[in-house]
């Protein structure tokens, strides 16, 4: 196997809450290989977005990375200077966001916003940058790209804006793309188009993609590897087909089963309660309070992320005792 493009090790992010630092994300580790699409899955508040912002150090003054390393091509991004980091952003690692409606600057034309990043990182001339902008807009399937680079973001629909965002992210031929809920705000038919585009780009350009989402449907559709987060921790990490077929963590299983499916398969089950807030994270298993399989051992102390059967990792003391597969009848075995 090749070496990972991005390797995240024990990433811990803290946020200032009423004057004290609260860990919001604890010991997150995963790898992304070139050409691979890795999904970071979790509900809101699970720390998935915080983690991916921390990779590019985009979490403003109120957050800090207190531990861990983010190795990109062997370089630790967390030890770079601000200026060096700025050279990485948008150049070697690009990022797209959830809200295409608000992620583009309304005051500048899309052409200038794309050209800007080309000029910044490639030192291209105005004309070259403009040419590149047309090229990438064309690549992401914007019709009549040459005539649309003079338009402002508000003149594009949501799906088109997300394409523009992707075009902007691709303009510098980055080796890695971080996509934070790129399809959540879009209609399903448009969502499918965008997902296909991302998949194609990963495949065609050998780009590593980190796809942050809460939608297991999106994961099932597009990803190679899945990292499931709950309450600021990675609870399970595995190859896509395997994790869907044989989830090893009760939360993963619960999440999959709580989801209504458009194909009508399976009975819906509900995870009772709500996830804990960062200031209520327990020392022991963070899912124990909601876990149908919880036993006394679950509350004995911190649970480590252990290697998982069939590869990956899982954070559950009972993982080997439980069979969390969905039976054909849709009930627990």
């Amino acid at each position, binding site marked *: 196997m090749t070496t990972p493009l991005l390797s995240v090790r024990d990433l811990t992010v803290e946020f200032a809450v009423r004057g004290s630092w609260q860990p919001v994300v604890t010991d997150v580790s995963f790898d992304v290989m070139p050409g691979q699409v890795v999904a970071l899955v979790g509900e809101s*508040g699970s720390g998935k977005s915080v983690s991916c912002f921390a990779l590019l150090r985009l979490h403003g003054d109120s957050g800090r990375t207190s531990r861990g390393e983010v190795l990109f091509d062997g370089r630790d991004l967390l030890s770079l200077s601000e200026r060096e980091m700025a050279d990485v952003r948008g150049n070697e690692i690009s990022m797209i966001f959830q809200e295409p409606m608000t992620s583009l600057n309304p005051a500048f034309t899309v052409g200038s916003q794309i050209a800007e990043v080309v000029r910044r990182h490639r030192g291209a001339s105005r004309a070259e940058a403009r040419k590149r902008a047309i090229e990438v807009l064309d690549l992401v399937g914007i019709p009549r790209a040459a005539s649309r680079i003079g338009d402002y973001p508000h003149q594009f*629909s949501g799906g088109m804006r997300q394409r523009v965002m992707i075009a902007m992210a691709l303009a510098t031929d980055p080796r890695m793309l971080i996509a934070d809920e790129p399809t959540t705000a879009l209609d399903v038919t448009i969502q*499918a188009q965008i*997902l296909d585009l991302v998949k194609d780009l990963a495949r065609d350009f050998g780009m590593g993609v980190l796809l942050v989402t809460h939608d297991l*449907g999106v994961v099932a559709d597009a990803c190679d590897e899945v990292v499931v987060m709950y309450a600021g921790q990675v609870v399970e990490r595995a190859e896509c087909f395997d994790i869907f077929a044989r989830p090893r963590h009760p939360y993963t299983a619960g999440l999959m089963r709580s989801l209504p499916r458009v194909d009508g*398969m399976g009975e819906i089950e509900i995870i009772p309660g709500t*996830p804990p807030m960062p200031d209520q994270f327990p020392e022991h298993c963070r899912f124990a309070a909601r876990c149908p399989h919880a036993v006394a051992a679950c509350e004995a102390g911190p649970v480590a992320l252990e290697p998982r059967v069939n590869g990956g990792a899982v954070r559950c003391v009972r993982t080997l005792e439980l069979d969390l597969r969905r039976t054909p009848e849709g009930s627990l075995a």
Partner: protein
Amino acid sequence: MSGPLLQVRDLHVSHRIGRRSLPAVRGMDLDVAPGEVVALVGESGSGKSSAVRGITQLIRPERGSVLLDGTDLVGLRGKALRRARRDIQMVFQDPYSSLDPSMSVAELIGEPLIVHTAQGRAERRRTAVEMLEMVGLRAEHADRYPHEFSGGQRQRIAIARALVLRPKLVVADEAVSALDVSSQNQVLALLQELIAELGVACLFITHDLAVVRQIADRVAVMYLGTLVEQGPADVLFDAPQHPYTRALLSAAPVADPVVQRSRQRVRLTGELPDPMNPPTGCVFSSRCPDAIARCHEEAPADRRPRPDSSVACHLVEADPALQPSLP
């Protein structure tokens, strides 16, 4: 049961934008039987929210009738409309803005009682607490304010408020789409349980097909202001007739890689046309992968492939026995 509870006929709703009028719903027929859950599905811009507002008279429809239990809501004004509203209550999409932040939970749940009943303060409070417990909150929550609750909890409050008058119909406008997976589930289950228990009919508006499948008895699919297909949920999901319904279903990913990656997909190109100038002929003709020349020229009439469903598409074979005989 005799006849539908809600009978919508030829509903037209427009929005005024400056001096221009933007048609959002153009001719919609829809029935909801007592105790039935009907889902109205569509993407953004399909006009489903406008349809809801036209049905509940939050916007006065341009044309058409909305019969609730035999009374036409269109044209009702003042007191009569207010009285009629007792039977048709709403749950809104955004649980953050649909509850007045300056009112306590008990006041919020009690507000419909002030309007429609002669209950005194103490009685209202008792009723409110009852409702709170019914939606899984506790009596001590009654004196708190909306901002102290999570989204799921707020939506429970909104449901309590909608059900406190025991209406005949609850209209839920994207009631769970702003919620997280786990609370979405909880709220959905609660809603399902309560409407079954109270025998309330529900018009459920959403863009999420998976949710529809879970909750709906019947489904109506909207595209650009018109219903393109409607029928029993199982039938519609298993054998969608309209190309748009098919596209919609195939675009919604299934959370199972094995199934998902082996599915046949109907790829749509392009985006929703401008509602100010819809395509000629069939509204879907500009994006339809199966469109034939006729589709661009003539708007299809509703066809009935089965007694309980209808499709507006030239390519669908109608059951001749069910086709209304033309004069």
